[in-house]
């Protein structure tokens, strides 16, 4: 039984369109849940019946109704295509989410990842039948090590946060080898860090000590020295940092840490600002994850999958987890167990069942080969140029907490909205009505009403100008007192503002919950 969605006319709004009978609005079509349109009997897949009829399930046959709904093939296609049309995407327009690096996703990469020689091989088939895959992983490693100036790499982490765990685990293993794991239990994290940093440290049994930033948004050597002590294991630092600033004292900080026997973990989320220009290894990093889904353009896919290979300094190289690839003459081997590791290696363990995100490795390598050393460098320069162009053109209408310098992303705060009755969230929602995905809002937490814009190198000057013109027009409208434009936004999206309080107070997380058997 399909219930038509209710259409409620927004109260007495002059410009509001008359409601339709269906709830649809031309190309915006309401789509029920599969459970409301499908049935238990319907299937969109045909099978050939096998000859064998004996069962050996040990009496454990499932006899209950599972509660799934099926659709025929045309219905399935239409359902998901209609859903897709309710999404904004990088293929639709600029996606300036700061700290997220939403760049163009070349389709060549998709085509390469779907070659049967990569997409249709099993992680545990004989090594001699996957030499090309192991060669590809080795080649990817060469590129990433050269770009970062580091010593060794662990490919298995499945996303950035998983990579953080890997790098920090290697640090813990190194401390164990030094006999200092029990005494060094504190990790320094700047207050502006991504939430994954303190969460990772805590999951490894470390306690977090916050390091305050200077008034200019960067971390000072003195602040680090003040936080150092014999109980400190590591510092986690994002560079460029989450305010979009390159940490100018990074080398002195690294030196101070190393003198104190402390490791430097670099969060590589913002590597897109410096790839091909600056090598984290030259700055003193001991470990850094690389978000292949950010810097090297594997698609974000609405939240994943990602890939988070970790590069390690010489001091940490021995502790890389299994599995990893080893070259022996012309052949490539997989080391899958610690006992099998070469002399001197002391893997800290295993992070995932198999060898890493192979599908992402192929895409990232295709991306890097396409760019080449020269293109990667140019991409970083264009990313930084684009952010600074946005900064220069918005500086007179928005407010910047740290007006000096920006790398690949530029940070604004909400001081320009003071007294307008418009919040950062309202401003973001109004941008939706103008046809743009908003910037990152309310992050980093250290700035009031933060708006973090990362245009990436994929945007042309025309595209940037369109976005900038829209932001400028909105800023002027807010200051002119046109608050309704913001507080009632979005008006033209598939949904108006959603009630998140209701969702959290009385969570409905699955269809079956509403229809108890």
């Amino acid at each position: 039984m399909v219930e038509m969605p209710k259409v409620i006319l927004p109260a007495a709004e002059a410009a509001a369109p008359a409601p339709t009978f269906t709830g649809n609005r031309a190309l915006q079509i309401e789509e029920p849940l599969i459970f409301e349109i499908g049935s238990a009997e319907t299937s969109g897949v045909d099978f050939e019946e096998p000859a064998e009829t004996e069962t050996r399930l040990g009496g454990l046959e499932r006899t209950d109704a599972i509660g799934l709904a099926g659709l025929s093939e045309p219905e399935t296609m239409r359902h998901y295509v209609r859903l897709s049309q309710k999404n904004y995407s990088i293929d639709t327009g600029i996606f300036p989410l700061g700290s997220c690096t939403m760049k163009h996703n070349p389709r060549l990469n998709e085509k390469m990842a779907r070659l049967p020689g990569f997409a249709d091989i099993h992680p545990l088939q004989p090594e001699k039948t996957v030499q090309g895959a192991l060669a590809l992983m080795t080649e990817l490693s060469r590129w990433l090590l050269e770009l970062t100036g580091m010593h060794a790499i662990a490919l298995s982490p499945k996303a950035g946060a998983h990579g953080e765990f890997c790098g920090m685990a290697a640090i813990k293993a190194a401390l164990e080898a030094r006999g200092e794991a029990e005494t060094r239990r504190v990790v320094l994290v700047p207050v502006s860090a991504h939430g994954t940093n303190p969460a990772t440290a805590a999951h490894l049994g470390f306690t977090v000590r916050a390091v305050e930033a200077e008034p200019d948004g960067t971390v000072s050597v003195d602040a680090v020295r003040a936080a150092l002590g014999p109980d400190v294991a590591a510092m986690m630092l994002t560079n460029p940092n989450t305010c979009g600033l390159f940490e100018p004292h990074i080398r002195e900080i690294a030196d101070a840490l190393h003198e104190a026997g402390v490791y430097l973990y670099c969060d590589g989320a913002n590597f897109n600002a410096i790839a091909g220009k600056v090598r984290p290894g030259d700055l003193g990093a001991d470990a850094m994850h690389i978000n292949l889904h950010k810097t090297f353009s594997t698609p974000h896919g609405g939240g994943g999958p990602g890939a988070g290979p970790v590069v390690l300094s010489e001091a940490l190289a021995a502790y890389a987890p299994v599995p990893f690839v080893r070259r022996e003459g012309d052949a490539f081997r997989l080391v899958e167990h610690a006992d099998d590791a070469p002399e001197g290696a002391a893997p800290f363990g295993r992070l995932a069942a198999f060898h890493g995100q192979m599908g992402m490795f192929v895409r990232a390598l295709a991306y890097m080969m396409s760019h080449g050393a020269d293109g990667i460098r140019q991409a970083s320069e264009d990313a930084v140029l684009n952010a600074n162009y946005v900064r220069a053109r918005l500086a007179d209408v928005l407010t910047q907490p740290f007006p000096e310098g920006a790398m690949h992303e530029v940070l604004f705060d909400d001081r320009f909205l003071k007294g307008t009755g418009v919040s950062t969230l309202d401003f973001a929602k109004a941008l939706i009505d103008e046809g743009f995905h908003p910037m990152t809002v309310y992050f980093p937490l250290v700035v009031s009403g933060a708006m973090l814009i990362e245009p990436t190198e994929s945007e042309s000057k025309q595209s940037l100008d369109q976005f900038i013109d829209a932001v400028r027009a909105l800023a002027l409208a807010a200051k002119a007192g046109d608050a309704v434009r913001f507080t009632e936004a979005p008006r033209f999206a598939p949904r108006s503002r959603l009630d998140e309080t209701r969702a959290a107070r009385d969570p409905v997380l699955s269809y079956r919950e509403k229809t108890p058997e």
Partner: protein
Amino acid sequence: MALIKYTEDHEYISVENGVGTIGITDYAQGKLGDVTFVELPKIGEKVKQGQPIAVVESVKAASDIYSPVSGEVVEINEILNDKPELINQEPEAGAWIYKLTLSNTAELDKLMDQDAYLAYASAEG
């Protein structure tokens, strides 16, 4: 007449006959926004002054509640399990969070009285 004191973390404690009733202030609920969930302590739990004992959550934030004084939890406000929004509606009345027996009444001296708290909160903005 109960004695009411306040902390810098915006908890209040109202003490009567050696039992303290603890919740968050009206100012605090205003800062937090719509409350969606309250993680209550367990009855019998012993807590020291300043230790986290409960959590009040809104959509985008989770705030630890630090016990204003030391003692043992004797009662919790289970209405908040079903009606967390009560914290927004009547924070300093029906939406108390827990009650405890005080183990050291001298700790109350370190807390603010109402006038001092109101001045403190208004200075915070």
